[in-house]
């Protein structure tokens, strides 16, 4: 397929889509769907699903996201190549995982050509530099501002998750968990990695980000493996060990399915008070602007969360055939809805003390933003208050302004981390920036650094 014929296909269908773009898609207030029991409207099927892509324009000099009162934001590192996740090492160095999607599989049907073209508007098409590497940010005087930047690990295969246990650093590439030796103060790893366990990768690799975390005792690793389709349109055989969280034995690499039916689980993190495993999940598309709510949930051992057969518990999805009423009967609803199509990809519990009191113990969620509804949703970092290890209260907007007044994307938040000083770090993949959020009135101001 040549570029020009791609363009013709896209023009043909987009023309029809644009004619619908001005129409209201009938969606409700997205904030009504935040919390433990979101209202679920009736399922809709479309000739053309509602679509609204925020075209990427990037950050101009001096522009930053907006933060809520009492907070301050500044860029920690810029000029990165599609930074998607972050990890703070014990000595305070920050790992920035720069990652791009793996090579697409062979086209299966005409829709993929059109969707691929439309989705290219929503990614940083202008950046073609090297990615698939981890960059280390080192702060030698402890003021939270890095003064050294080095390529820590290079030539990775669409990496996403990172976890350090002792001197073993694990990187979750899209097709395997790889172990590297790490020693305090290392700014570069040159030793080749050892594969701990392969993960479901290509040739079809639809949801390719493999989120990774280690159990509090360090014996086990948990890895999120997203589904290989929106809703089984690549065939059930493509879904082997997918839409699952796998539990991997760190010694042997043997794994088992810890929980299933989680369409695209990311941000795997242990909640500090209850020590339960939590994840944020991207739910299915194309059955309505208010379906299905994306969510965050504690993950119970052996639990089934519905995908593909049902959503939010036992609401069956007619697009899946053959249906499995036996599995639907076992499906449990998740804990907390983040609203539909917000695309949560990052989760960090706040254990630091730098930010105001109200944030302690709660969870920050990075919402990459919607495409499958007319009114954009997400494109921000929210805070969900917790008490006794459970969400307690409505999610609040903490970092916004990723969209400009024309609803173009200056950036899109993905992975989150808390740095050693207790600041919140945000990976912005199309803005190619890592942002650092601190309390207003603490730390060096951007002006002082000039």
């Amino acid at each position, binding site marked *: 397929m040549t570029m020009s014929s791609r363009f013709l296909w896209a023009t043909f*269908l987009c023309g*029809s889509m644009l004619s619908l773009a001005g129409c209201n898609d009938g969606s409700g207030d997205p904030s009504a769907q935040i919390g433990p029991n979101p209202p679920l409207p009736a399922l809709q*099927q*479309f*000739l*053309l699903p509602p679509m609204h892509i925020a075209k990427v324009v990037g950050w101009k000099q001096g522009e930053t996201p907006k933060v809520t009162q009492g907070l301050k934001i500044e860029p920690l590192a810029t000029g990165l190549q599609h930074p998607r996740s972050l990890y703070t090492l014990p000595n305070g160095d920050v790992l920035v995982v720069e990652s791009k999607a793996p090579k697409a599989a062979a086209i*299966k*049907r*005409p*829709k993929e050509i*059109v969707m691929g073209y439309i989705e290219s508007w929503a990614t940083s098409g202008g950046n073609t530099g090297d990615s698939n590497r981890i960059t280390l940010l080192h702060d030698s005087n402890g003021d939270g501002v890095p003064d050294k930047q080095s390529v820590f690990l290079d030539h990775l295969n669409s990496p996403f998750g990172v976890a350090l246990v002792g001197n073993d650093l694990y990187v979750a590439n899209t097709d395997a968990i790889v172990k590297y030796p790490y020693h305090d103060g290392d700014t570069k790893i040159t030793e080749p990695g050892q594969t701990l366990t392969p993960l479901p990768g290509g040739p079809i690799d639809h949801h390719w980000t493999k989120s990774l975390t280690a159990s509090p005792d360090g014996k086990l690793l948990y890895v999120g493996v997203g589904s290989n*389709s*929106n*809703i*089984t*349109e*690549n*065939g059930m055989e493509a879904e082997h060990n997918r839409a699952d969280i796998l539990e991997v034995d760190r010694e042997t690499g043997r794994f088992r399915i810890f929980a299933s039916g989680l369409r695209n689980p990311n941000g795997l993190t242990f909640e500090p008070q209850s020590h339960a495993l939590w994840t944020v999940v991207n739910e299915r598309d*194309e059955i309505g602007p208010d379906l299905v709510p994306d969510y965050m949930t504690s993950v119970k051992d052996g639990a089934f969360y519905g995908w593909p057969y049902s959503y939010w518990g036992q609401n069956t999805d*007619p*697009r*899946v*055939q*053959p249906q499995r009423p036996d599995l639907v009967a076992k499906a449990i609803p998740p804990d907390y809805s983040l609203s539909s199509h917000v695309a949560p990809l990052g989760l960090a519990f706040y254990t630091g003390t730098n930010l105001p009191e109200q944030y302690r113990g709660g969870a920050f969620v990075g919402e990459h933003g919607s495409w499958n509804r007319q009114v954009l949703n997400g494109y921000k970092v929210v805070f969900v208050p917790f008490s006794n290890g459970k969400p307690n209260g409505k999610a609040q907007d903490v970092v916004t302004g990723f969209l400009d007044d024309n609803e173009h994307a200056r950036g899109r938040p993905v992975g989150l981390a808390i740095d050693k000083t207790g600041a919140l770090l945000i990976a912005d993949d199309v803005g190619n920036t890592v942002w650092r959020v601190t309390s207003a009135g603490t730390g060096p101001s951007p002006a002082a650094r000039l």
Partner: protein
Amino acid sequence: MTTYDESGARLATTARIASHPIHPMLVPIPIVCFVGALITDIVYAVSAEMMWANFSAWLLIVGLIFGVLAAIAGLTDFLANRLIRAQAPAWPHMIGNLVVLVLAFFNVLIHTRDAWTSVVPVGLILSIITVLILPITGWLGWSMVYRHGVGVLQ
């Protein structure tokens, strides 16, 4: 307006290459594609094997594109020659095939859905109706040529 080709035929077509009308060269492609899409839709409905639904999506989009090209050639002949337009089968042939293309357009959109409901039930129903119309419009088209002599050198 009445056009005559080199031999002076009264029912000459306008969209032609060396006296060979273009419309009948193109029409087999959408016919084969739409019949094929009905077959692959049926096989998918029976098997739930996604490969067959993918075949349907390709057949429908190719059938639609060549159907539009065939329609452009056919409409050119229809509009440019008053005598062709005056033949009894001309109007029902044209209207029937426009209905086929409109149905195929919606069927292409239905087939962009994911998995089962990209075919069952609406896609399959549209494929059946499309294929039921084709023998009627095809019969009328053949009448235009074999009985009325449209595009035939005299």
